[in-house]
C-alpha cells in the first residue's frame, strides 16, 4: 500500500446550536485553517470528499451548499458519502492509494441542532416497514444495548457514570467541547433516567460543527507536515440491521475491522498509546475498550463524543484527533474509531503511526 498520512486537521468550536452561521460559514474558516496549517491552497488539492446528511439538514442535497463554499471551479475530482465523514476519509484514503494524486481534503459539516425534534429524524434510519413505525426514540435502542450489557454482568451504572465523570473533566479547556466540568459519580447517579439504564449525561450532546482533514501521500506528506500521521491501516464493517437478531453484548464488527486494520498496519489496536473512540453513549466505552483490548491506552483524552457530538463530523473528528496526537508529538501510535447506526451497527477502525 502507498504511504498516506494526515498532515493537517481542524474543527470548529463545539456548539450545541450555531444560529449565527449557515453551513458554508461554519465550514469556511475551518477549511482555511486546515489548508493553512498544511501550507497549501485549493489548487493543490487533487481529490475532495465529504460527508453530510440531508435528513439532519431538513433539505435535499445539503452537501451542495458546502461544496459551493469550497468552490469547485475549475472542475474538481470529488465524491461524497451520506454518512459520517469518517467514511469520506476512508474513500479519500483509498483514492490516494491509486496513485492518481497526492493531496486529498475531507470535510464533514453537520447541524444536528436544526431539527425541532431529533427523535423524528433518527427514527428514519430504521427499517421503514417494521421498526420505524414503532418510532423508538433515538436513545431507546442504545438503552437496549446498555441494558443487555448490564443484564450480562458486563457493566453497571456506576461504571457508566465514571466514564462521564472522566469525559467531562477531560473536556475542560477543550474548544471542541459543548459540555464539561467537574461532576461526581453520586451526582450523576441521582439524575433521572432517560431510558433505563441511560441518563441524559450518558449520551453525547448533539451539536453543530465542521471538521476538515488533509491527507497526503509519501514525500508530499513529509513536505507538508513535520511529523505526518501515517494511516497504516483502516477498515470498516457492517452488522445486521435488526437489533433482535444481534447479540448486543458483542461488537464483532469492531473486532473484525480492528483485525483487518492490524493486518495492514503491522501492529494491533492494543499497541496504541491513545484511542479516540466514537462513543455516542457512555456504555460504549467499556464495550469498545474490551473489544479492542485497549488496556494500556488513554481513551478520549479530550472527552470524546460525550462532550460534543456534531452530526456527520463526529467520526471524522476522531480520526483528526487521533492524528493530532501524532502530528504534535504526543504519541507514536494512535487509533480512531467511528460508528454509524443504532447500537454500533457499523464501525470503522483506523490505526495511525508517526515516524520515530
Amino acid at each position, binding site marked *: 500500500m502507498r504511504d498516506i498520512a494526515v498532515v493537517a486537521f481542524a474543527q470548529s468550536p463545539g456548539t450545541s446550536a450555531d444560529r449565527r452561521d449557515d453551513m458554508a460559514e461554519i465550514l469556511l474558516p475551518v477549511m482555511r485553517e486546515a489548508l493553512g496549517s498544511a501550507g497549501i491552497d485549493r489548487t493543490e488539492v487533487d481529490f475532495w470528499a465529504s460527508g453530510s446528511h440531508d435528513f439532519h439538514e431538513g*433539505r435535499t442535497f445539503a452537501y*451542495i451548499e458546502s461544496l459551493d463554499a469550497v468552490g469547485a471551479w475549475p472542475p474538481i475530482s470529488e465524491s461524497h458519502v451520506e454518512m459520517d465523514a469518517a467514511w469520506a476519509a476512508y474513500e479519500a484514503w483509498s483514492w490516494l492509494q491509486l496513485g492518481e494524486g497526492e493531496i486529498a481534503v475531507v470535510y464533514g459539516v453537520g447541524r444536528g441542532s436544526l431539527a425541532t425534534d431529533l427523535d423524528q429524524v433518527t427514527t428514519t434510519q430504521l427499517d*421503514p416497514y417494521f421498526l420505524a413505525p414503532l418510532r423508538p426514540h433515538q436513545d431507546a435502542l442504545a438503552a437496549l444495548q446498555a441494558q443487555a450489557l448490564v443484564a450480562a454482568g458486563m457493566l453497571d451504572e456506576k461504571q457508566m457514570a465514571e466514564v462521564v465523570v472522566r469525559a467531562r473533566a477531560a473536556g475542560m479547556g477543550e474548544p471542541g467541547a459543548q459540555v464539561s466540568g467537574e461532576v461526581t459519580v453520586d451526582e450523576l447517579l441521582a439524575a433521572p433516567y432517560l431510558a433505563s439504564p441511560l441518563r441524559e449525561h450518558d449520551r453525547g450532546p448533539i451539536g453543530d460543527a465542521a471538521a476538515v482533514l488533509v491527507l497526503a501521500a509519501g514525500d508530499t506528506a513529509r513536505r507538508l507536515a513535520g511529523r505526518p500521521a501515517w494511516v497504516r491501516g483502516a477498515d470498516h464493517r457492517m452488522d445486521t440491521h435488526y437489533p433482535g437478531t444481534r447479540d448486543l453484548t458483542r461488537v464483532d464488527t469492531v473486532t473484525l475491522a480492528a483485525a483487518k486494520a492490524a493486518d495492514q498496519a503491522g501492529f494491533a489496536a492494543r499497541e496504541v498509546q491513545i484511542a479516540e473512540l466514537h462513543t455516542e453513549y457512555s456504555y460504549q466505552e467499556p464495550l469498545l475498550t474490551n473489544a479492542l483490548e485497549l488496556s494500556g491506552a488513554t481513551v478520549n483524552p479530550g472527552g470524546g463524543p460525550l462532550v460534543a457530538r456534531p452530526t456527520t463530523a463526529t467520526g471524522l473528528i476522531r480520526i483528526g484527533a487521533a492524528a493530532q496526537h501524532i502530528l504534535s508529538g504526543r504519541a507514536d501510535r494512535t487509533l480512531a474509531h467511528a460508528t454509524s*447506526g443504532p447500537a454500533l451497527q457499523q464501525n470503522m477502525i483506523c490505526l495511525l503511526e508517526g515516524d520515530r
Partner: protein
Amino acid sequence: MKLAVVGIGQSKQAKKRKVTIGAMVREAVDEAMADAELEFGDIDAIVLSKTPDLFDGVMNPELYLADAMGARGLPVTRVFTGGSVGGHAAIYGAHLVQAGLARRVLVVAYSKESEGDFTWALSRGLPFSAQLGAGAGAHFAPVIREYIRRSEAPEHIGWQIAVNHRLNATRNPYAHLQLPDITVEQVRESRMLWDPIRFLESCPSSDGSCAVVITGADDAHHTGRPPAWIHGMSWRTETGHFAGRDEVNPEAGRQCAAEAYRQAGITDPAAEIDTAELYIPYSWFEPIWLENVGLAEVGAGWKVVDSGRTAFGGELPINPSGGVLSGNPTGATGLLRFAEAAMQVRGTAGEHQVPDARRAIGHAMGGAAQFHALWVVGSEPPQS
C-alpha cells in the same frame, strides 16, 4: 490493474408498490450474484448508490439494507452525488479493487419513488430564498431553451428522440414505460410541462434497482459469460452557482469524458464508440450530452440525431435500453447506464443488443448538471 464487470442484475422498473425496498434491492443483487456465479462469502465490499433520502424517507439506507445486500461483516459505503451517484458508486467500487482493498466489490443502487414525493423533495425551500417548488424539469427547461437558441435546432428533434427512446424500451423487458405505438404527433400533442418540455419528453418517476459485481482480471473469467472490461473511468464536479458556468455544455462533463477517453486511448470518440447509454431525463439532453461528451461537434448534436445515426439500427445507437426516458429510478439510473453499457460489450443485452458492440459508454450526471461520471467499457481487455 485491469478491472472488469462480471455480474449484472436489475429489477423491472415500475411502480413496485407490492415489494419492500429491501426486497426490490435483493432482486438486483440476486441476479448480479447469479450472473457472476458468486456467493455472498465471495464479496469483499459493498458500495450503495441512492439519491436523496427525502425521496423515500429512509435515512442512511445502508443500515436498513445491510441484510438485503448480504452485507453482514462487510465494509459498506453509501455514496451520494445526486443523479450521477450510480456512476460514482461504480467508479468507487472499481477504485476499491484497483487500490487492492477488495478483490470483488458489489455495487448496489436503487430508488423507490412510489414511496415518496420526488418533486416535493427536490423543492425544499432554503432559508432566505424564494420557495419556487420548481422540481427538476423547471431547472432544466431554460437550459434546453438556450441549447435550441444557440444551435438553431428545429423543434421536432425533441419529439423524435422521445419516440426513439420509447421504441428502444419495447426491446427491454426491464424498462418502465412500454409505449409501442408512440408517434411524433403524440409527443407533440402531449401536455406542456415546462416549456419546451412536454409530458412525453420527460422521464417517469420509477421504482427500481440495479447491481453489478466488479473484480480484477484474475477473477474475471470463471463464468462462461464474457466480462466487460473497464477501459477508462472518471468523475468531475463543478460548482453549481456562479455566473461563469455554462450549463448547456458543462466544463466538468467535458473534462470527465476527456479523462476517461485518455485512459481508454480514445482520440475520436464518435468513431471509436459503438453505443452509449447517456443520462437523458428530458429528450433534448440527447444532443446536449452528445456534444458535451464529444460524440458530436458543438452545435451539431441535433443534426446527428436528425440523421438517424443515434436511433436503434443507426451507427451510434444512444440508449438502446430505452434509457432514462423509459425508466428513472434516480438512485439506480446512473448505475443502470453503466451496467447497460457493460451488457452491450458483453453481448448480453438481449433484444436491445447493438450488433458487434465492442466499446460502449456509460454516463451519468447529477445535481444541476454539476456532477458527472463516465466510464468506457470494452469487450476486450485494455491494452495497457
